[in-house]
């Protein structure tokens, strides 16, 4: 029993930690997709954020300045995507693919110049995103250790769960959210009612870049301590998958991200100790997603105007 509770604590800890970056990126993806812009460039934006966050934290010694700069770097690429797709009518998939090449390309190149290596210098403990509530629980008891495992976790994890609530509130309880969703469903109608569709979309895609950048920064500043070219690989796409899984709703994306996070967590805990093949174990989250989709989720409603460039009528 004690062993089980310990393991459960470790699994929950890993779940939360691995969910965090995906969730930031997924919330970002929600902003972009719901406003009507396909943002496949999340991956590139995360990579930009991961590198920038780590380097700034390393240079300034402050994890929070680094974290913020990670977000801003993502926002920069978000703005680039917004400029191309919203202002210039570019094909959203093509522009996103370009972002996915440019983001990693540029930051790895900078890394080569700064550190003469594709990896950055590892952060020290004080430069990493701090853990909250450490030492609050009495780790000599089973229950205390469980609580310590689960709740004494990175500040970025607490932040992202607050962010989910905030984004949900913004989407469904504010005027801005209503307009945002309307832009993705019927931009022409919005324009008729005096809503600035172009402006809304520019803003939302930039916000999506910012959140993706924060997500990337979590990977390199909390889970690991340094940026490497393979830090992000694939996580941006997983975040997009989580959003589609969650039917383009922040609360749905939360469940999708938790699913992936839980499977990653399980992998970390089971890996090595048990006789289960690591490769097959790694496959689980993807297989589970497909099965869940077939059995429970099915057809998802894509915002009607998603992917279609909006040309303002003169």
């Amino acid at each position, binding site marked *: 029993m004690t062993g089980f509770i310990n393991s459960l604590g470790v699994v929950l800890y890993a779940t939360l930690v691995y969910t965090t970056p995906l969730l930031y990126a997924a919330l970002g993806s929600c902003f972009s997709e719901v406003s009507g812009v396909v943002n496949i460039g999340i991956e590139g934006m995360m990579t930009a954020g991961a590198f920038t966050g780590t380097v700034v934290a390393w240079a300034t010694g402050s994890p929070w300045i680094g974290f913020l700069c990670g977000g801003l770097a993502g926002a920069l690429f978000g703005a680039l995507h917004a400029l191309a797709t919203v202002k210039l009518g570019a094909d959203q998939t093509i522009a996103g693919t370009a972002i996915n090449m440019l983001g990693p390309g540029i930051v790895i190149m900078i890394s080569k110049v700064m550190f003469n290596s594709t990896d950055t210098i590892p952060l020290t403990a004080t430069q990493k995103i701090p853990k909250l509530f450490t030492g609050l629980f009495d780790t000599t008891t089973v229950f205390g250790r469980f609580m310590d495992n689960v709740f004494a976790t990175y500040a970025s994890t607490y932040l992202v769960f607050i962010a989910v609530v905030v984004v949900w509130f913004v989407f469904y309880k504010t005027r801005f959210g209503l307009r945002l969703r309307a832009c993705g469903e019927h931009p022409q109608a919005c324009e008729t009612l005096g809503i600035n569709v172009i402006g809304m979309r520019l803003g939302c895609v930039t916000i999506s870049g910012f959140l993706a950048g924060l997500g990337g920064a979590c990977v390199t500043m909390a889970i690991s301590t340094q940026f490497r070219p393979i830090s992000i*690989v694939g996580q941006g796409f997983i975040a997009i998958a989580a959003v589609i899984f969650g039917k383009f709703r922040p609360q749905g994306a939360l469940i999708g991200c938790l699913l992936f996070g839980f499977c990653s967590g399980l992998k970390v805990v089971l890996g090595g100790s048990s006789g289960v093949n690591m490769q097959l174990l790694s496959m689980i989250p993807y297989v589970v997603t497909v099965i869940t989709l077939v059995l429970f989720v099915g057809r998802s409603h894509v915002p009607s105007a998603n992917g279609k460039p909006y040309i303002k009528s003169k």
Partner: protein
Amino acid sequence: MTKKKSVLDFLSENTFIHILLSILLGFLVGAIFLLIMGLSPEKAYGRLLDSVTNLKGFSYVVVYSVPYIVAGLSVAFSFKTGVFNIGAEGQFVVGAMTAAVIGILLPDVPKPILIPLCFIGSMVVGALWGMIVAFFKIKWGINEVLSMIMFNWIAFYLSNFIAGLPGIHSDGSAEATKNISDNASMVLSKDFIKQAGLATTANWGILVAIVIMLIIWFVIEKTTLGYELKAVGANKYAAEYGGINVNRSILTALAISGALAGLAGALQLMGMGRRISIFSSQEGFGFAGIVVALMGCSNPFGVFVAGLFYGALVYGGSKLNLVGAPTQLINVIVGTVVFFIAISVIFRYLKYLKRAPKSSAQPRKGDVRS
């Protein structure tokens, strides 16, 4: 009408010019980055050009290009039919693994049988991998982009799993499969390579790529199937109204696209790789295929040239560190090229703004690509 063409007309109508301009801008942006880093663009680009303009270098480019061309054709074919095959990556991986398994387990089958067997095996498995996704979409309405991303990862881990199986895994310490049998190898004879001074992995994969290019062009442009698929890509509802079975078209398109991506995997393995490593992250041939398809405007001939261009950049890029420039420069250049191709629709848009009367300037559906 003999109206004089304006510059804008020229720019808006000529896709080839868009691409050339984009490539130029890509190198320009690359040069700016080089200058910021305190490196000489002249030196770096000179190195890039030097490494691909001699016989040996060029033969490397050709060898490198083959998987990119075929993966590019795969994605281009899916684009034509309105499906975005982001799953090419997974189809590539399962195709390569199938060819590897056949090439390892049947070492004594003679070359003229084994090579086609590997091709067919990889194409069948690649097609199945694409069709699962299409089936999920048709049967349960599962978003294809989502399931493709999932199947990319499933393919990746499946490949790693198979590579670790006894009988497949290398006998040595390498984290990889055994080498495929010489009978499954497409590499030209060693003596010939030495005499002609070609790349050490010089192979005849490019001929396969050319044949595939011609077949795809023929299917798209000259057959009923191609017409139906294009009709579905252009307007699903109109096609359905016209009596085309949309679901079947999606299934066919993804099957063909998947088969091509699978074949690309086999070509890469049998031409260059010889074995499959256990990777820690996706190799990205399928994603490169997307880029190549975009640069080639989804036109089979365009994709062929784009694939060669991409192969040249990848090979040339691997030599860049000799002059102190980071290899990643290539990604920045290609990313910029794709970015400018994406926004080149602005020319069409500008033209429409200029032409259309101010009062009712509603663009026709075809004016701006969606």
